[in-house]
């Protein structure tokens, strides 16, 4: 059970980062999610 939960959380983290990467580098999103100061 714990292993499934871990796989879910790690998968979610990978998906979130990949989405941010896509938004920033490919879609050229205006909002800065890097240091968050923009």
């Amino acid at each position, binding site marked *: 059970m714990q292993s499934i939960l*871990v796989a879910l959380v790690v998968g979610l983290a990978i998906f979130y980062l990949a989405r941010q990467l896509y938004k920033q580098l490919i879609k050229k999103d205006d909002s800065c999610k*890097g240091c*968050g100061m923009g």
Partner: protein
Amino acid sequence: MKVALIGNPNTGKSSVFNMLTGLRQQVGNFPGVTVEKKSGSFTHHNAEYKLIDFPGTYSIYPRSNDEHIVYDVLSNPKNEDYPDLIVVVADAANLERNLFLFTQLYDLQIPMVLVLNMTDIASKKGFEIDKGALATFFPGVHVVETNARVGLGKDRLIEAIHSTSHEKRTTAFIDGAHLCSIDDFRTQENEAEVRYDKIKSVASAAIKKVDLASKKDPNKADKIIVHPVFGYLIFALILLVVFQFIFSFASIPMDAIDGFFAWCSAYLQTNLPQGVFADLISQGIIPGIGGVVVFVPQIALLFFFISLLEESGYLARVVFIMDRLMRPLGLNGKSVVPLLSSVACAIPGVMATRTIADKKERLITILVAPLMSCSARIPVYTLLIALVIPQKTLFGFINLQGLVLFGLYTLGLVAALLVALVLKKILRSKEKGFLLLELPSYKTPRISNVLLLVWERVRVFVLDAGKIILAISIILWALASYGPGNGMENAAKRAEQTAKEKGYSISATDQYVASARLEHSYMGKLGKGIEPVIQPLGYDWKIGIALITSFAAREVFVGSLATIYAVNDDTQENRKLIDRMRMEKKPDGSNTFTLASGLSLMIFYVFAMQCMATLAVVKRETSSWKWPLIQIVFMGILAYAGAMIAFNLFS
């Protein structure tokens, strides 16, 4: 009904916008361009008014990308932002100059309201404005006095907008004037001459200046503050004081936050049912969140001071004095604003270069802006300074740690200026830039504005940067907790055997075994792979992993170290990150973090282009991958060489 808010820069346009719309605001872009568009709305007598805040401009004919938007919208009635009514915001203390843009807009024959803002400063300077006289020159225009910073004149302005919106106007200031082509400089010049002549007669009839002999000049302090020598000294002194404050006051809440998360981590590790998910929470998620929250006090303090300086009108003086310093280095005076913005974040800094008309000067500014120490570097700097710089006081009042922080910021600035000088020689610019800057009057900062900015910055840091740091922490934990084949288990068994033979204590054995497991995990393999490259800089493979992960954003470095050393520490004691780093040893038994390796890391982060978001913005602003690639290479070389020199000098 669409209402356009237009005016010269520094007339308090944003304050008028905030006063009218309150919290009903949206920020986006004007269609097709990357110029920020702020819009908001308000209702009056059941009518809804949509307010659009346009970039500040001195003339309807643009000189920069930002100003272009005003011309583009007003020259095309089919534009979706073409207004039904224009509210021109003018600085009451500089009305004559503001009338140039106002009369240009007046001749478009769109219904309009003239707002005389900052009336308190105008009266302090001895100006009295005859609204009746203005009305005779500009029939059909409602003239409203406001002091938007304190919300004075709001009802009068709303009423004026409401009544003007129903009026049609056919009068013009200059007969036959029309919006000509941007490139038709001859027509623009001729029209400007006629316009200035007529404005003089308006000014002499409507603006009266009371004898100032009895009144104090509110900007008298400028004699010292923008002085060619004292100006720089005062600026350096203010920065030094700010960094001293950040170090002296932020450490108390930071220690408390750090201690709290370390306690949480240890508590959960002991009380949650044993298993991988419990490990993920106590070693991945909690240290990850702690790594973000712990820097809130420093970020809040830095922006508190920046906002205080901006609100008081001092920051504009800094731009003015720095212009003198920048000119010989090939930078446009307008480069100062993007560079100063980059102290907060390089992204708005790079975007602020749109006000620079000359393409090559703009490019140089874009290329050097990320060398200014942004706030994302604060977590890295402060952690390393606290780790390797002793807590000493020099001459009885200068905090050594604060002084080093000040030195790192100065190093970034000096590097930016020197690189600009080199780029000036390589790129060469034919045109000569100029700085057109208005020094606003000194004002007592409004604490509500200051706190609003601090809140906004902290919120964005915790929510936006925080999510990325947390996601990376989780992935790092997974990479540090799993490894190829049975490598980790075998290494753990060997380590346990060795620890038994050497007679280690239980706590030392736990740590020794955890260290061996980490070394054989996926993350360990990755770190070991790059170790030969970073060894000359004084770093081991664990620091190497943090360097790789912080390529996404610099502050991830701290979160990564927090995760790596949490996984590495299996003793279940609630140690803080900094204590874990102090205990970290090389294979030969010496400390990993020494003055030499600590300074080397700090220098690395001063120069390295460790920010994906900035690269994306540079790509967008230069419309090419060439410049961000050049930037990443030259900053990488600077970082590597600088870190190696620092390590060898202090070893």
